């Protein structure tokens, strides 16, 4: 054997992450600011939901001067919430210890999963400004809040609590965390702070958010839903979401329980009926009556494969959280002035053995984007905006794969469609397959892309009703202009050739307006029908969601405008023109 060259040492996870912060979202100064805010906000939202509190979060970002690193600014990021607060012993773990989490592997659709993010932010602060996170926390049971500084003991992956003191805080509970870091602030663009903050408000209708970034004014976004989403408890595992090894491992918890009882209680969606079917597929009753612990590998495999062949109910909706079409419909209007929109909430389904729920919201904006620009695609995984590495993401691939021309949007080949639209795509699942630890991209498996595609197509169909209406309106307007353009030329020419007088000319013009007006009326009727059609669709949607989107009010206005412009309008304009000419 070769001589050992160097001693094999093991290092703490903190050591690993502190050397590889780029893997968890700290690869550049701009990303460092965004990730810090994002991790703090995610934690606050998760905590509020756990404690059934309506979240109210405020974010402040200040530039204090030049940073210690080259090209960096010295930035202070402060995130405050009204959540349940943290006990002092938990503060150290949350902010100062890697992989210390209440959420790891729970099978719930929480934003945070592993317990890496906020500790990484503390590490970043420590590395760039030699000071960890400054935390104020208060639970309802604490008489006074505690203010302290948390640092990461990188060698041992332990949190260190420093300068702990009691603090008078004017609220029943909450956490405030303060980071002094090297960073750069990018406001605009897909990777900008605004995109993140807008995204968070979009998928969290129950959130009230205040933010002040650099020298900008405070922005206050009020919640539009007053119930805290019920974070579903994880259900028993669904047999179709498991692999054989997991299936066998799962049995170890059940010891001498009978196999039939194990299957019925240890898994979701297995009933007596399913067991009967299983028997029809060749699994003997005697096998189902044996103790779980007595089964051989082969027997486990036989049962497992038998179950895989059966058609089971989809995993319970309870384990995946849905924002809901109502929530999305209300929330999308907080992003800006919306012309019209369409939302689509799919039923939960299984992609790659995991329950997944896909939701889509598409809105045409009045003041953002243009016909020539690509649409703004917002991606969300478990209600967290994804802002980087768009190209590799399952959601982008799904959007590109849809033929948007069919729904009235322009779309260059193999690209995102064009137009002043915001397209929000959300994937919620207890187990999202991210491509990397910083949760920037969702792995594009065929099944997931197909599910996303279906949601997008359905949303596109809903959207196209609005677009068709717009096209019809434009059509009507064009017809009117066309008539106004040619009518006098035609009549004047005919009058000159037949040497007809002024009186006949006016009468002919009147008649012409009537004839062509009739046609305009026809077009108007079509338009009204189109509007009614889309109204009915909206109403149906409203019944489902309990929301009446703003677009509901618009058709009336448009019809009014239409009527003013109609026949009388043309005639009036014409007679005015004539009068002018007459003079």
């Amino acid at each position, binding site marked *: 054997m070769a001589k050992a060259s160097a001693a094999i040492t093991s290092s703490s996870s903190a050591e690993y992450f502190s050397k590889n912060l780029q893997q968890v979202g700290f690869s550049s100064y701009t990303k460092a600011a965004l990730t810090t805010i994002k991790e703090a906000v995610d934690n606050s939202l998760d905590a509020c939901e756990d404690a059934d509190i309506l979240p109210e979060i405020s974010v402040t970002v200040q530039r204090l001067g030049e940073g210690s690193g080259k090209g960096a600014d010295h930035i202070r990021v402060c995130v405050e919430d009204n959540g349940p607060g943290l006990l002092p012993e938990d503060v150290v773990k949350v902010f100062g210890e890697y992989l210390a989490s209440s959420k790891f592997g729970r099978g719930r659709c929480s934003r945070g999963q592993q317990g890496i993010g906020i500790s990484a932010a503390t590490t970043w602060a420590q590395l760039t400004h030699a000071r960890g996170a400054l935390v104020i926390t208060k639970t309802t049971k604490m008489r006074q809040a505690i203010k302290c500084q948390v640092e990461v003991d990188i060698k041992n992956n332990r949190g260190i609590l420093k300068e702990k003191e009691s603090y008078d805080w004017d609220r029943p509970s909450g956490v405030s965390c303060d980071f002094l870091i090297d960073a750069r602030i990018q406001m605009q663009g897909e990777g900008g702070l605004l995109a993140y903050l807008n995204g968070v408000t979009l998928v969290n209708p129950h959130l009230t958010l205040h933010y002040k970034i650099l020298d900008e004014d405070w922005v206050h976004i009020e919640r539009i839903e007053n119930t805290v989403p019920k974070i579903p408890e994880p259900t028993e595992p669904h047999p179709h979401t498991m692999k054989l090894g997991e299936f066998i491992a799962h049995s170890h918890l059940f010891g001498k329980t009978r196999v039939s009882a194990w299957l019925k209680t240890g898994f979701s969606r297995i009933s007596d009926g399913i067991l009967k079917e299983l028997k029809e597929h060749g699994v003997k009753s005697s096998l189902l009556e044996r103790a779980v612990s007595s089964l051989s590998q082969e027997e486990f495999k036989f049962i497992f494969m038998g179950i895989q062949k059966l058609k089971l109910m989809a995993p319970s909706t309870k384990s995946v959280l849905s924002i809901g079409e109502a929530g999305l419909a209300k929330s999308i209007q907080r992003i800006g002035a919306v012309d019209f929109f369409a939302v689509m909430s799919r039923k939960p389904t299984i992609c790659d053995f995991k329950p997944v729920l896909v939701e889509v919201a598409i809105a045409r904006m009045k003041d953002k984007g243009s016909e020539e620009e690509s649409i703004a695609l917002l991606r969300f995984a478990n209600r967290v905006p994804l802002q980087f590495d768009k190209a590799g993401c399952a959601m982008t691939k799904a959007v590109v794969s849809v033929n948007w021309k069919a729904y009235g949007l322009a779309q260059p080949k193999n690209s995102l469609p064009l137009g002043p639209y915001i397209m929000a795509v959300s994937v919620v699942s207890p187990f999202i397959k991210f491509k990397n630890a910083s949760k920037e991209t969702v792995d594009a498996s065929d099944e997931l892309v197909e599910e996303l595609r279906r949601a997008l197509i359905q949303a596109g169909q809903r959207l196209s009703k609005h677009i068709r209406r717009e096209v019809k309106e434009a059509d009507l307007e064009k017809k009117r202009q066309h008539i106004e353009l040619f009518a006098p030329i035609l009549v004047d020419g005919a009058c000159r050739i037949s040497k*007809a007088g002024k009186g006949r000319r006016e009468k*002919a013009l009147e008649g012409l307006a009537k004839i*062509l007006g009739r046609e305009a009326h026809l077009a108007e009727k079509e338009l009204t029908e189109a509007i009614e059609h889309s109204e009915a669709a909206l109403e149906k949607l409203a019944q489902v969601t309990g929301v009446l989107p703003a677009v509901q009010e618009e058709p009336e206005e448009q019809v009014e405008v239409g009527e003013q412009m109609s026949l009388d309008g043309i005639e009036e304009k014409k007679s005015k023109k004539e009068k002018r000419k007459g003079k």
Partner: protein
Amino acid sequence: MPARINVEKLSVEMCEKLLRDLERGKRPVLEATKCSLDNSLYNPKVGYLTPGDKKVQTELNVSSVKKMSRTIFVLELILRNIESGANNTKREVYYIAKGEIKHNPTLKPLDFEDQNESDEIIDFICEMMECYREDLNCFANDRGGQTYSGQLIVEETMPDGDKAVIDLSKLGTAPFQPKNRPQSLKLKARKKIDFCLIVESEGTANTLVSSGFTKRNNVILLGAQGVPSNAVRGWTKLIQEELAIPIYFFGDLDAYTLQNIFRTLKAGSAASLIRNQDFSAPDVKFLGVLPEDIKKYDLPDYAVKENDATESRALKKARDALENDPFFQDKKNKGLSDILKWLLKNKRRCEQQSFFSVNPRDPLMPEKIILDKIKNKNFV
């Protein structure tokens, strides 16, 4: 020749009706003869394609208001021309219209993108009034029809009433060029003329003249220069009417020549249904090249290139003609449709110049073959 159509009167009537309809809130309709093959009739006793009952109706609506406005606009320009006696080509009318529009911004919406658009309106007016373009003082270029003869005398009455007499034997090597308005010409023969020969290629016609064809024979020889223009068609008709001599057409053996050139000369075309009466010569015979000539004179023919777009289109047209063209369907023209069938079957073609290959050392060989064919009634 029919009495000249009174365009002014028709125009006023049309505009009167248009205004009347408008005043009553009724949609005016402009009606024109449908000029297409599916509205073409062929009666062998009449000899040319005549229009059927089909009409194209343009009802005033959002999509036709532009065409109607343009029609009235162009009509006004033409009426002005007729009044002042000015003549113009279609292209000139196009520029006159452009000029009017340039100087009158309210007319801007009528503006023509290219000449096709204004031509379409002029044709529409003709089809509507069932008149000739020449009646609108709008003339095409007098292409083709260069005529040589030692016996023919042409007498022309000019618009101002003056008369001119042209003796074609006095023109030397220069040809006589017929005008678009054969109505104003009278023909006389100083000596009995045996026949008239129309040669597809202007160049070949020239060669025949320079080798003395018109000196040796009492004939009228004219070059068609491809698809016969209105001038050539009207001129041939005039020769048929006034001189009553046999007329032969000598051209290539291919689908294009037979359908586009020869059929137009003999029976007019579907696009010009309303003018075929004065612009076709039903007595003209197809002298060749005939399919049997290839064998008889051992002429060099060659295969039709089916991958050539123009040639494959000609073949397709020939197939269509056999199915839809009343001229080729009539049994009186069986000889001609048989040639088309032969062409479609054999996919070969033979040019008229191949006669020069029969005896390359004898420049008079083509003439000899032509005379031989006429003598032996070897034509269709």
